[in-house]
């Protein structure tokens, strides 16, 4: 497969942010996740859990609650505002102050007409959902103490509100409180005087109310009579969140211990109909607090302080031993946070609030494959650039020559000219064309003369950069009327082409010289996760969220023979079973038939000459394959050469000197930066 000199980089201190809250839209099968830094991420569960969209957050705006109303997404936070997001342009659309102090929770009724917000001052505020905005309707009767959690009865006639030490049930019509359910204070912890916080309530259609509180209890109440039915003591610490399955036969509760406990509504004896809530399974997939939970039809989705999004299918709902039944952990973002300047040997790392520019180390040693070479020059950090303003960075780019650096936030784009020869200097390009205001992806052309930026309405703006000057050239408009944001920009190596992909699954190729659309790749069902144009053969390679690989010839404007063959034979099952999407496609100029792909757990060289793997063939790690005998090796060699020695990869790219840059982020480093988990007695310690 060829030998490379590998820069194994572990100094990218990427730190994902804790998951704060989640909401699932079962119609569109989109999961929205809000993180502690205010970022909102949208995952498409229908498309292999691909992270479609990321809306960066801003300082001082912590999202406390999320709510889908139809296809619209609302959030509320401790800043007291209710925000609606523009999911096409990846930015907040409008915000509305609720005038009730910090908002702890919002919830919409099942009809999608009303939005209730629970506020610090003890009011439940009702907002009417209008076409383009929300409008305050009225307050429900005001209570003492904050409203922590809210749940609508499915008919929309009643609302249960979790407060301190109690749960109130409101009549949604009159706005009066009809029941007051007192929640016992915890006996477990030292002081009895400490008030108990009802972190989460769930109102079921049979008027059962389920509550989870800070005393570690899950309580089941009869909402008609207002009486307590059962108490389940789960933990010494808090029960932070509850989630109900769509058919209301199962409830899950997330605790501070990192466990998720399932309760099921089942009959105690086989023949009888009287059912009761019984504690059943316990899932332990987190090390820290589970702050957010979603119960889909087939899976439990949980997230928390340990920053991982865990999708654990319920084995009684899915077919066993299929890909669907495998547990998934999503730790790293499905987009590139690292830009490489291939010619200059520079790396740009994107953090949410700053950028870091590093120069790669050098080594002149030679060694056998697998050897560790002595470092002649250590890698050095050249620039740390803090972002301006309150908005977090949403994208960044470094030009291949290393002379230009650009980043964008929700509100602005900044372009810098870098001088790195002897004394490092960085100059901001002061005047940018006004078209460059709302940008979700940036990229430089291979000769560093042009800047491409994806903008609103799925358009791509082309600007030329030269000598501290940036000039608007053109806007590429998509041929279709798609409004989905462009999330991938890939200029070709020869500078002729620009490939774009949007979250609607469309891939367009534009001619950069003629400034017009060259062709569109036929849309397949799955969203592309990486696209790239081959430098010599002028074919476009795209990898999709369902792990399919396509090669599209730009000259013939059709899929190549290799791509057809691959589709005909079908991908290897082991390839399809991987759970992380391919995030980068690169080519080896020395070996034009090689395609380099990587996801977070492996990198792979696809050799287009070699035969495709049969269904029964095994995917050997290349280091294992090396140790086999020659005949065995030949028998097991096929087009997909998987290399798993590097783990938790954030970037694999080929530099111009044919050395490979591998950016790793070991999980242990992430775990060590997490706050301490709650203390738990472990056996034999």
């Amino acid at each position, binding site marked *: 497969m060829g030998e490379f000199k590998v820069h194994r980089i572990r100094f990218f201190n990427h730190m994902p942010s804790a998951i704060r809250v989640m909401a699932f839209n079962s119609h569109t099968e989109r999961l929205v996740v809000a993180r502690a830094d205010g970022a909102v991420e949208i995952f498409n569960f229908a498309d292999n859990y691909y992270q479609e969209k990321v809306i960066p957050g801003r300082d001082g705006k912590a999202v406390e609650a999320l709510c889908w109303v139809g296809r619209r997404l609302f959030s509320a936070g401790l800043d007291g505002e209710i925000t609606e997001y523009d999911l096409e342009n990846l930015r907040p659309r409008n915000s509305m102050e609720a005038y009730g102090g910090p908002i702890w929770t919002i919830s919409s009724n099942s009809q999608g007409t009303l939005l209730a917000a629970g506020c610090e001052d003890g009011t439940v505020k009702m907002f009417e959902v209008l076409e383009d905005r929300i409008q305050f309707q009225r307050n429900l009767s005001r209570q003492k103490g904050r409203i922590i959690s809210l749940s609508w009865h499915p008919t929309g006639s009643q609302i249960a509100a979790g407060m301190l030490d109690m749960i109130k049930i409101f009549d949604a019509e009159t706005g009066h409180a009809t029941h007051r359910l007192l929640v016992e204070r915890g006996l477990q912890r030292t002081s009895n005087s400490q008030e108990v916080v009802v972190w989460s309530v769930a109102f079921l259609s049979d008027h059962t109310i389920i509550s989870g509180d800070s005393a570690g209890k899950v309580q089941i109440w009869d909402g008609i009579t207002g009486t307590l039915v059962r108490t389940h*003591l789960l933990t010494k610490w808090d029960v932070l969140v509850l989630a109900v399955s769509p058919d209301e036969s199962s409830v899950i509760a997330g605790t501070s211990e990192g466990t998720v406990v*399932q309760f*099921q509504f*089942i*009959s*105690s*004896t*086989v023949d009888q109909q009287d059912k009761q809530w*019984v*504690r*059943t*399974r*316990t899932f332990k997939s987190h090390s820290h607090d589970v702050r957010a939970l979603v119960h889909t039809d087939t899976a439990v989705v949980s997230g928390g302080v340990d920053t991982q999004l865990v999708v654990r299918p319920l*084995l*009684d*709902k899915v077919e066993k031993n299929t890909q669907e039944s495998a547990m998934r952990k999503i730790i790293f973002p499905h987009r590139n946070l690292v830009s490489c300047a291939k010619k200059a040997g520079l790396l740009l790392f994107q953090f949410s609030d700053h950028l870091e520019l590093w120069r790669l180390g050098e080594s002149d040693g030679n060694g056998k494959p697998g050897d560790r070479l002595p470092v002649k020059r250590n890698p050095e950090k050249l620039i740390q650039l803090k972002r301006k303003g309150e908005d977090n960075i949403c994208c960044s780019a470094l030009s291949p020559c290393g002379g230009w650096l650009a980043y964008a936030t929700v509100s602005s784009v900044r372009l810098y000219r870098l001088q790195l020869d002897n004394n490092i200097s960085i100059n901001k390009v002061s005047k940018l064309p006004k078209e460059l205001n709302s940008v979700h992806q940036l990229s430089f052309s291979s000769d560093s003369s042009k800047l491409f930026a994806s903008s609103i309405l799925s358009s791509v703006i082309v600007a030329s950069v030269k000598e501290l000057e940036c000039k608007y050239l053109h806007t590429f408009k998509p041929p279709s009327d798609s409004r989905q944001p462009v999330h991938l920009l890939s200029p070709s190596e020869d500078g002729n082409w620009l490939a774009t992909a949007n979250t609607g699954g469309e891939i367009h190729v534009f001619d950069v010289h003629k400034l017009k659309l060259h062709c569109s790749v036929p849309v397949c069902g799955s969203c592309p996760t990486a696209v790239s144009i081959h430098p010599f053969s002028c074919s476009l390679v795209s990898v999709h969220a369902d792990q399919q690989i396509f090669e599209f010839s730009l000259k013939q404007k059709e899929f190549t023979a290799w791509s057809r063959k691959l589709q005909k034979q079908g991908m290897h099952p082991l390839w399809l079973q991987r759970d992380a999407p391919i995030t980068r496609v690169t080519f080896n100029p020395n070996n034009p038939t090689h395609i380099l792909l990587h996801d977070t757990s492996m990198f792979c060289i696809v050799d287009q000459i070699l035969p495709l793997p049969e269904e029964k063939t095994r995917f050997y790690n290349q280091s294992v394959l090396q140790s086999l005998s020659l005949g065995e090796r030949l028998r097991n060699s096929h087009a997909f050469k998987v290399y798993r020695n590097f783990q938790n990869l954030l970037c694999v790219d080929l530099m111009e000197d044919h050395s490979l840059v591998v950016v790793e982020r070991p999980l242990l480093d992430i775990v060590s930066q997490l706050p301490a988990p709650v203390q738990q007695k472990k*056996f*034999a310690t």
Partner: protein
Amino acid sequence: MVEYGDIRVVYRGGSKINFRKPVISNDSRFLLCASGESVKVFSSVTEECVHELRGHTGQVTGVLLRPSNHLQVYSCSTDGTVRLWDFTDGILVRVKNEKGTFRTLVVKQVCVFVFAELFQLVAVNLPQTPDQLVEARDLSAVLSDVSSNPSTIAFGRGGEYLASVNNLKMEIYFFKKNKSYRFEPFNGGKNTFTCIACHPKDDCVATGHDDGKIRLWRNFKQKKEYTYSTLHWHHSAVSSLCFTPEGTNLLSGGVESVLVQWRYNQENQKDFLPRLGAAITHVTVSPDGALFSTSHSDNKITIIQSCVKVSAVIQGLVKGENVTTGLLVDPRSKALVLNGRPGHLQFYSLQRDKLLFHLDIVQQEYIHEAGLEQFEVVRAAFDASGLWLATVEERKQKSAELELNLKLWSFDEQTQSFVLNTTVSAPHEARITAMCFSQAADSQTTTLVSASRDGHFKAWQLGLPAHTDGTQEYEGPSWSCDFVGAYHGLVPRCCCFSADGSLLAVGFQEVVTVWNPTSWELLTTLSQPPGDVRNLCFGQLSCSKYLLGSNNKKMVCCWNLLTCSLEWSTSMDVSLLLVDSRSENMAAFCCQDGSTDLFVFKPSEPRPLFSQKAVCSGRVIHAVFTPREVMLESSEESSQWLNRSQLYFLTEFMDLLTFSTKAEEEKLMASSKQLVIDDTVAMTPFYLLLGKHRHEHLGNEESAERTPLPQSSVAIKELLQTPAHVLPATSFLCSMFAKSLLISVTETSRRVGHRFNLNNSDSDSNSSFRFRFFEDMTCFTRAS
């Protein structure tokens, strides 16, 4: 078992009582457990064995109460029979013959379910015939591929379904629909099922697992949508699970020797009963929920009240992994002495089949931990009078040197126990191979000889009382080394004193040396065909001039000590040679082809008195002659050697076996028959007082009639006929009333016991109604 004439090998005493789950009777008064070839009925209060239900000829593999009559019990055995007993009286009610061997049984209403050989669960319909012996032909297999362990199968709520687990599979069979659901929820790892229990009221099945988890399964009527919750306290495999009869609690036990009581539906509340002494193998609950019982790996049953308090302990013979001390007989109590609990010697009465006590030898806390080497008792010896006990304990750690302690214990008459007299640390430099006391009855000058691998044998003698200067307390005499002997640097393997204590024979590898124990001079060496001496024995009584030895080259030699010459020798691979101290007889166990043969002979006679091929499978590792309390009068030549003493032996599978003659067995059976006929009272010490008393009168008045009820008494008439409002205070009447019920001495001859349903079990086997009126003694009334 093997028949030989009228002598056969039997399990008698010391059998396992923890082999299968015990059963507690409905009134919680009795506990029944399978024990060897019989079922033992223990009183749950006094811990005494009340009856032994004998009759099976193979190992009993299951005991269960009969659901339709709680005074009867089923038992099954490897002999292919299921028997029905009336356990309160110990009557055999019904025998069923069945081909194949039964592993265990479970009972549901009318059917009896048994595990047959091929790991099938078979339903047996009992024919309703009055015959005592019935052959059951109506068999139907319910489940196949079940585990051989009966705790992996359980009946659900009201017997509607049957749940069984095996390895990683669980199967639930519904009787009504005749349909079974199979679950294989785990891929492997340590999730193997170990045991199962069904909730009596809810459809909930609890399973125990290898990794210590307990899972509660619900909703198992669907193939897919079953669900379970997990309870985890045990750190290693859960060995037994049991729900209480109302289903409010779940009991579990494992190797931790802690009984855990979980509240059903409030699983984070649990109670513990720790320090039960040994790993729990079975947990059972009485039908009224008042008593729990746990069986333990050290052959013990603990009876626990439902308030989680231990109320009684029934201890059987403790069988560890290996018996290093061999079998000994305490000359004083005639008890069998061998290794018991770790670091202890146990004294077990074979006559009463009861553990007498444990003597703590090591006197160190035993720490339960895998791989930890601890002090173990490896040798023990009694002197002839039973006054002295010598023990050797050793600890061998991989890195450290061998640690050895020789301890001498004297019997204290006051406390009736052994008291440590002398501790000799490191008596030898290497492992002690043999130890024996001088047989002479004179206790003051008794000598202990220990032989070790370091090439020496040492003689130890009780020293004179230490003369102290008066300030210190008087200390009794202690033991000290008197002589160290060696022979050409060879390793002594065995040593033996002659019966009168005048000679000591020590076998140094291939050479037998004979020493004078008073002067410690080497008297002679006896030539021996090549081969290391394994056993040495002096003849007894009239044969005391003979010394016998066996070696590892399949030779047995007999030397005449008067002539110092070889009297005879024969080629036999004797693994164990022992002498009966009460007669001239010697026993030799020869191991051949995986089984062991026994020869009993007199050294002076060329022909063996008794020989039996294949007394047991496997090697016999230890054997001992125990003196009988009552001599047998057997005239048959072949069984005469059993008249004065019994021969007990321990196989490599830790089975304690003995030989029994036909006459002896008949006597035993007769005694149990007798028990059935003229007694309905439990065989307790209390009975012995009352029963004898009653016998006398019963004998006198066979035809007496029922005494008239004491209603005719004036006092009672008055009491019953006077209007209530004019009656004096009850306290006043009470003594008068009680007095009227008493029967004066002259009246005693008139009382009688009347009974229905004489014990003719043939005529009406099913009913166990039994009435008896005791006008004079309100002793035992029993409702059916």
